[in-house]
């Protein structure tokens, strides 16, 4: 195994282009335990953390640019990001302990393509985009198109994610993320649920969306949420119907972390709670 730490995007692209066995990493929080579990490390490991663009975190009128290798802790510490995307920051801040927070990156959390990745539902519900780079240049895709299944992304050989983009949120719009885990920390989501809600001056819903994690091979965008909620004031009945939609949208498995029935049920519970939380936040912005 060879460790390399390129300092430019071009250099990293060249390394990937010239070696089919090369793999990029940032936090290594998944990579190193896999190596411990006996899985072979790739011949060439490309550390992205010395490339300034990959560590970037900035906002302008156009929107947010988040380097794929920037640590979760840096995102969580950014007060403006916290106020504009509280749900996304909640999700990112749930990725492991403080130790993990200082290493784990959005790029790694998403590109490892675990169905339970905490940042997945929030990034999808907020319609983030991934900027992908290779020697062929840059291309930008909707975040929902990045993950294809457990451990599988749409990245072509030689490609990696350089950064993520998010629009600035409109007024009276907010997001939220909740997950269910047996422990308060150091755990993997049994179910994760992200919501994005927009309200009018009267607090009535003008738009809403829910995306679930850990209930299917990829994140699940629950259909029909906006139809149920737009025009409502998030009353119990409407939320209960949303919960039912979420439970139905799941395609969960039984595993050591939960049963199918439990996951379906929890998806509904979290949907109600996360929509309520996002609605409160959106209303507070009035």
């Amino acid at each position: 195994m060879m460790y390399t730490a390129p300092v430019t995007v071009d250099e990293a692209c060249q390394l990937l282009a010239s070696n089919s066995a090369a793999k990029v990493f940032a936090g290594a929080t998944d990579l190193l335990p896999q190596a411990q579990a006996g899985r072979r490390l790739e011949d060439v490991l490309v550390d992205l953390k010395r490339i300034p663009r990959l560590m970037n975190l900035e906002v302008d009128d156009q929107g947010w640019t988040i380097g794929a290798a920037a640590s979760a802790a840096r995102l969580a510490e950014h007060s403006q990001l916290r106020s504009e995307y509280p749900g996304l920051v909640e999700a990112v801040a749930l990725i492991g302990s403080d130790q993990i927070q200082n290493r784990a990156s959005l790029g790694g959390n998403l590109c490892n393509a675990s169905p339970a990745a905490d940042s997945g539902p929030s990034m999808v519900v907020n319609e983030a985009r991934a900027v992908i780079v290779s020697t062929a240049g840059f291309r930008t895709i909707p975040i929902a198109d990045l993950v294809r299944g457990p451990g599988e992304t749409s990245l072509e050989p030689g490609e990696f994610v350089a950064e993520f983009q998010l629009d600035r949120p409109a007024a009276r719009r907010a997001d939220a993320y909740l997950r269910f885990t047996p422990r308060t920390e150091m755990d993997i989501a049994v179910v994760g649920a992200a919501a994005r809600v927009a309200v009018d001056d009267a607090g009535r819903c003008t738009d809403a969306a829910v995306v679930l994690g850990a209930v299917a091979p990829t994140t699940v965008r629950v259909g029909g949420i906006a139809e149920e909620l737009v025009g409502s004031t998030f009353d119990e009945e409407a939320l209960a119907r949303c919960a039912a939609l979420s439970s139905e949208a799941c395609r969960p498995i039984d595993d050591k972390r939960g049963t199918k029935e439990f996951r379906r049920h929890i998806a509904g519970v979290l949907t109600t709670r996360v929509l309520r939380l996002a609605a409160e936040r959106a209303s507070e912005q009035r």
Partner: protein
Amino acid sequence: MRSHVTCTINGDEVEFLVDDRQTLLDALRDELQLTGTKEGCATGDCGACSVLIDGRLNCSCLVFAREVEGADVLTVEGLADADHLHPIQHAFLEGAALQCGICTPGLLVAAKALLDRNLKPTEEEVRYAIAGNLCRCTGYDKVVRSILDAAAEMRDSAVVS
């Protein structure tokens, strides 16, 4: 492949040779004989191997040794000055915050990371700040109290000086 790494560990500039796949934890323990940093799981789930890298709390089992090139690393061995303990170490002794002591180095480093940024943590903040450090002996009660005691002590001495 073996490579040179130059970095600062506990204030000293050190240079060592590592296999590229070697973790910082293994380099500390096997190459530098700094065995105060412990291995409990090697998967980042117990925090026994916690160190500060450029002031940030990390599991050294999740870091390739090559990554600390040029960095400033602090291990439990670097907490005390030559002739006096860090207030957190003091508080752990006074508060009986250790039983077997295997998790203690990691907890001390995690507590330092917390108090370096927040000298007035709540109990809940302390509990979440050390949630990445498993202790099986104490039930955390005396650990949490000792960290709160250390914070109070450090606040007092900050006022004095």
